């Protein structure tokens, strides 16, 4: 089980996390993965930047805040028996952190390698605290860094790729004996080490990635991700009153939901679990009696309904290029994407008019201006494109469900329902996967579109 930063944000939450472990320990053998406390990782990023720029006053303020947070939390979460050793350890780590920051500010340099080293303190500090809190409840634990648990990676500092087979083998070798002694390994999330032993971080997916690797290595029955939501929902409950938690989704559906903004594992993190078919459960750490959402390789029908969820990505814009010169001209689309790609604009959806005279791209709203400029520079005045226009007021609606592929008429139902409410559909995604239909409407009409689709497929009804 993995506890996210929000589930370890303060002493009370850490004590709660320890009780969650205790609650499930009689019937299960458990490996725990800990994220950094709250937003410590962001603070460390900031600290690194300040140190590099030589802003020592501000840096030391953040540094001491991080140090104090962990010392105080350690005092408040461990029993008297545990606290001496724990505080010594936190003290040592705090000193090491301080030295690291000093090193950065002396050199005025923050390499990807030293940055990973700096970031690793978040998990290296939180993990022994959580381990001691669990021990204080009378269980046996052993705190380990990712490297100590056997996770090795390549040298891509900042977003290292695990050497999966090497790691699987090492993790089994190191953790099996600990589990056999009935101890609970408590492992730092997010961090690994190169073959030579330098600390790396796993980047996107972070601690979830660690949990997924551990589950795959040890062939666990399930991987539990403890977080601050009840699970994956049929829709945003702030938009749809009768939205409910989905009991089961498939990895494919979860992938779509995470792309469309659900609070879900990053696809990268999901991969080891999906590959080895280990189910992942998303659960709320403050309501451990709830079962949460089970993500597995099984395609589970939603009580006969082909649609599982409908989500919304707000704050997007549409950039449309048009020109009669584009008709029959091969490579027009390629030029558009090259121009956007080279100015780092991520295209979320595309649509080409059937006349070929227009291409529309949906991009994040913050990228709209950039996109327009890049396209104007690259395409205007060459006889291909006459016009580049932007619309800022848009949102993407994504309808997700694995049953949609083989079922005729789903799209007709979706767009029929939206049309009845006189909502204007601007763009429909091309080449959408078999798990989703997505389209763009104005931002103002977005919530209404979500509600009518939720109603149309009766997603609020229990299956």
């Amino acid at each position, binding site marked *: 089980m993995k506890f996210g930063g929000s589930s370890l944000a303060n002493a009370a939450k850490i004590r709660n996390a320890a009780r969650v472990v205790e609650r499930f320990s009689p019937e299960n053998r458990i490996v725990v993965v800990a994220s950094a406390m709250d937003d410590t990782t962001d603070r460390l990023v900031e600290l690194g930047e300040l140190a590099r720029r030589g802003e020592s006053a501000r840096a030391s303020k953040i540094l001491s805040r991080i140090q104090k947070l962990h010392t105080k939390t350690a005092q408040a979460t461990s029993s008297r028996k545990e606290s001496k050793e724990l505080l010594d350890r936190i003290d040592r780590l705090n000193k090491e952190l301080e030295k690291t920051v000093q090193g950065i500010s002396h050199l005025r340099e923050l390499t990807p390698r030293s940055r990973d080293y700096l970031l690793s303190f978040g998990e290296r500090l939180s993990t022994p605290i959580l381990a001691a809190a669990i021990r204080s409840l009378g269980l046996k634990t052993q705190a380990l860094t990712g490297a100590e648990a056997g996770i090795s990676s*390549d040298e891509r500092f900042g977003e290292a790729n695990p*050497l*999966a*087979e*090497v790691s*699987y*083998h*090492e993790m089994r070798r190191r953790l099996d004996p600990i589990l056999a002694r009935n101890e609970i390994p408590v492992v730092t999330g997010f961090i690994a080490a190169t*073959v*030579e032993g330098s600390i790396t971080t796993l980047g996107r997916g972070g601690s979830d990635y660690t949990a997924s690797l551990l589950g795959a290595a040890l062939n666990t029955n399930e991987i539990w991700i403890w977080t601050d939501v009840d699970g994956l929902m049929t829709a945003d409950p702030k938009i749809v009153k009768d939205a409910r938690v989905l009991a089961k989704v498939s990895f494919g559906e979860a992938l779509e939901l995470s792309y469309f903004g659900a609070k879900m594992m990053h696809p990268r993190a999901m991969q080891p679990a999906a590959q080895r078919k280990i189910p992942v459960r998303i659960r709320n750490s403050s309501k451990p009696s709830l079962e949460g959402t089970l993500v597995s390789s099984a395609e589970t029908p939603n009580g006969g309904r082909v649609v599982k969820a409908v989500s919304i990505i707000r704050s997007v814009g549409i950039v449309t290029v048009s020109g009669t010169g584009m008709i029959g001209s091969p490579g027009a689309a390629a030029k558009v994407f090259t121009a956007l790609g080279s100015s780092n604009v991520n295209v979320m959806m595309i649509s080409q008019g059937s006349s070929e005279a227009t291409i529309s791209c949906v991009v994040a709203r913050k990228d709209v201006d950039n996109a327009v400029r890049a396209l104007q520079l690259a395409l205007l005045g060459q006889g291909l494109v006459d016009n580049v226009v932007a619309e800022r007021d848009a949102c993407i609606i994504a309808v997700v469900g694995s049953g949609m592929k083989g079922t005729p008429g789903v799209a007709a139902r979706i767009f029929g329902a939206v049309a009845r409410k006189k909502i204007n559909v601007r763009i429909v995604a091309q080449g959408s996967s078999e798990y989703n239909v997505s389209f763009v409407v104005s931002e103002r009409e977005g919530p209404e579109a979500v509600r009518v689709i939720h109603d149309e497929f009766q997603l609020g009804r229990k299956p």
Partner: protein
Amino acid sequence: MRIVLIGFGTVGQSLARILTNDRDWLVKNYGFEPQVTAIADSRGSCRDDNGLKLDLALKVKEKYGSVQKYPGNSERKTNTHQIISGTEAEVVIETTPSNFENGEPGLSNIKESLSARRHVVTANKGPLALAMPALLELANHTRMQLRFSATVGAGTPFLNFASKCLPGEKILGIHGILNGTTNYILTRMDEASLSYQKALAEAQEKGYAEKNPDNDVKGLDTAAKIVIIANWVLKRRISINELEITGIQNLGPKRILTAKKSGARIKLMGRLTDSRATVKPEEVPADNPVCVPGNLNAVAFSTEHIGDVTLIGRGAGGEETASAIIRDLVDIRSEYSI
């Protein structure tokens, strides 16, 4: 090419002998001039960055039982970590005993070597049987070669045959006799109607079986080879723990007799199919090409278009195994010009 040799038993010493005797021939034909800069056995090590005198090392080993008595730079304790990272060398050769429980000491030696950016040639099957996917991934990551021709069939090139002589042909399954010791025992039980115990004793007398024959007779050695073939030829990521293994230690004369009456023999077969990997005594028709006698090995590759292709050869022996190691060394030499 500078070489660290870990393990100086039957195989290690045979290798040293060939490298001494064939030196001029290897230089002339392959431009291959090996220098062994360190040797370790269980009791110590010796080292010379300019190249040890192999004939002297062999004499010292024979006389004192350990290379630790080699004159000059030698150690009374085996610290393989120091030998691997601290010796000038491009290649580490691993010939310590095969351990199928935890792979040690070979597993650590190979990991350490690859991490220290040394190519590895191993005759030791234990580490591969337990962690072949991991070791291949590690070699790939550190861009080093991990070669293991000697582990399957010793001198007989079963592994290279499949990967180099059958490209483009789909291999559907593999089966065969991969352990000479057990094949000798079974042959003697059949030919001379010996009991298992008698046949084993005879094999031990002739030096085919070790004092502790468990790895052979319990099927672990065969299983290890099946794992290596599965990973290398069929790209199947498995380890020895996933195999169903039955040895020959409980085989009675009755079963052998029954088989004989129907024109068949009992053989310890390793078998890889689409979904399974097994090692167990099986009845094989006497006229089947894999049904080889004595201590021979035979492997049949079942292919899509040309049916079964069977390769027969001796599967063990110090000199044969050492020759396979040299094959790997020459390969590495031609790829890296070292």
